[in-house]
């Protein structure tokens, strides 16, 4: 619950960050969404034992942080809050895959450690890319972008409504939880006997609210369609942003940049 509370408060912060005025914020949301998906796809496409070869991809989130003025601490805290399921699973690799893959300064490093490191890096890269996308675009503009990319209207409208009432319902629940905990000295978790009435109440209030919203909508002529804002047009800037990053991701995927750079430095052969 603490974590979710924290998240509830953080939602407002995300929203404020998304409201900043930088050239990156002003880009068409479609361009940012497409580049982020492309980025995640590039990360995922790397070989299981790829580690250093993936590092240059970190340039993308770093540039977004810099140009979109996203505080690094904000991002780190959010990444740390994410469920570490993937990391836990990856931790099994060092125990299962003990074959020595590389030796560095006489220390043998097993394939398991390298593939674990790869999972960790994938985790950090993909999670921060998703969080950054919203932080420099804003959830609502992202939804508008999705609609323009052909996501069904039912889904877009659903996302918008969910986001709008997330704030209202989280606040309502927080009040409910606080009122309960002030009257009980026990643990934070509910017994089954009190869980049903409490969440049930919340549900009834939610259903009643849905009814009232529908009434308010139909009083203003709602006919099943939401007519939303009109996005700025796609311009050369968007094309440049999309193609530029796509080319960079292709380059990183095609050539092991750190290794080539290292060869240059050390002299190699």
């Amino acid at each position, binding site marked *: 619950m603490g974590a979710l509370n924290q998240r509830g408060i953080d939602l407002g912060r995300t929203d404020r960050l998304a409201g900043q005025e930088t050239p990156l914020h002003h880009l068409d949301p479609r361009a940012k969404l497409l580049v982020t998906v492309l980025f995640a796809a590039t990360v995922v496409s790397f070989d299981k034992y790829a580690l250093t070869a993936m590092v240059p991809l970190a340039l993308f989130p770093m540039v977004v942080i810099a140009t979109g003025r996203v505080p690094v601490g904000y991002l780190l805290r*959010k990444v740390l809050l994410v469920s570490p399921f993937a990391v836990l699973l990856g931790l099994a690799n060092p125990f299962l895959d003990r074959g020595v893959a590389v030796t560095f300064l006489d220390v043998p490093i097993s394939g*398991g450690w390298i593939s674990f490191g790869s999972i960790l890096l994938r985790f950090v890269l993909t999670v921060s890319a998703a969080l950054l996308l919203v932080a420099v675009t804003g959830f609502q503009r992202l939804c508008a972008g999705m609609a323009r990319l052909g996501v069904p209207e039912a889904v877009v409208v659903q996302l918008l409504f969910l986001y709008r009432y997330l704030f209202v319902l989280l606040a309502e629940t927080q009040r409910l939880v606080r009122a309960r905990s002030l009257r009980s000295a026990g643990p*934070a978790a509910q017994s089954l006997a009190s869980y049903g009435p409490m969440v049930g109440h919340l549900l009834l209030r939610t259903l009643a609210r849905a009814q009232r919203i529908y009434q308010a909508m139909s009083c203003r002529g709602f006919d099943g369609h939401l007519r939303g804002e009109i996005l700025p047009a796609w311009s050369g800037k968007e094309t440049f942003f999309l193609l530029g990053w796509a080319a960079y991701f292709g380059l990183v995927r095609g050539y092991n940049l750190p290794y080539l750079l290292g060869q240059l430095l050390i002299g190699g052969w």
Partner: protein
Amino acid sequence: MHMSDALVSPAVGAVMWLSSAGLIAWSARRVKQDLDERKVPLMGVMGAFVFAAQMINIAIPGTGSSGHLGGGLLLAVLLGPHAAFITLFSVLAVQALLFGDGGLLALGANAFNLGFFPCFLCYPLLYRTVVGSRTTRARIFTGALLAGVVGLQLGSLGVVAETSLSGLTDLPPLPFLLVMQPIHLAIGIVEGLATAAVLLFVTSAGIAVHEATGSRRTALVLLFAGLLLAGAVSLFASTRPDGLEWSIESVSSLASSVPPVSEGVSAEPAGALVQSATAIAGTLVTLLVAGLIAFALRRKAP
């Protein structure tokens, strides 16, 4: 549990996204055909409700730990399978985008594991069958518990299958399965109990639930199609152990005409030392360059 971008391979991610996208498109059409405008705000607030309900933990008797509602089954009972699937998808999308849970590429897999099973299989085949036309408290309880447990077992099976087929972890599928299923038995029981508790309260408050009825025939068709697909995939995987990997290779090899210099290569010790030193030195410099670029951009930014 959420699948994560860090665990999926492109092939698994793409297949799961295609399945879920198909289900979304189909559900969106069905919801539209319903012509029930009331559902628009209802689905929206119900999505927010799932988040809110997840803030409230429920104690698991006798264990000292606690769990919370997943929501798929409850949504299916209250909204019908199609609207429920879209609503649950929106919940997972918000989790992925705002909280980084799961990830954009794993979203398809998560929608399938946590949405498809409870909404399109467990609700019509188990819950509706048990509850039938005469809703009694005992039937709601049994139906929700059964559907909750089976739904989570199937979802967990999905996670294991997707993770193993992706091949990023070295966990052998069988032991992995043996760990995951019991954990999800507990989670499934909590899901069933929590759903039942809420439904029973709402019913006793005199609110009629489930105006929607899921078609059992559709569910059976989907189940059959799913089994067929799973059978085909496992056959393909067993005849070609590296089947999926091979298909990825063939795709990605188009892009990569790279010399095989990844860390996985074992060479003679001296050569390996040079190689790894080269890789590490290069990585450090790469990070330095990226950092400098970011720093310069930050300074330039107004």
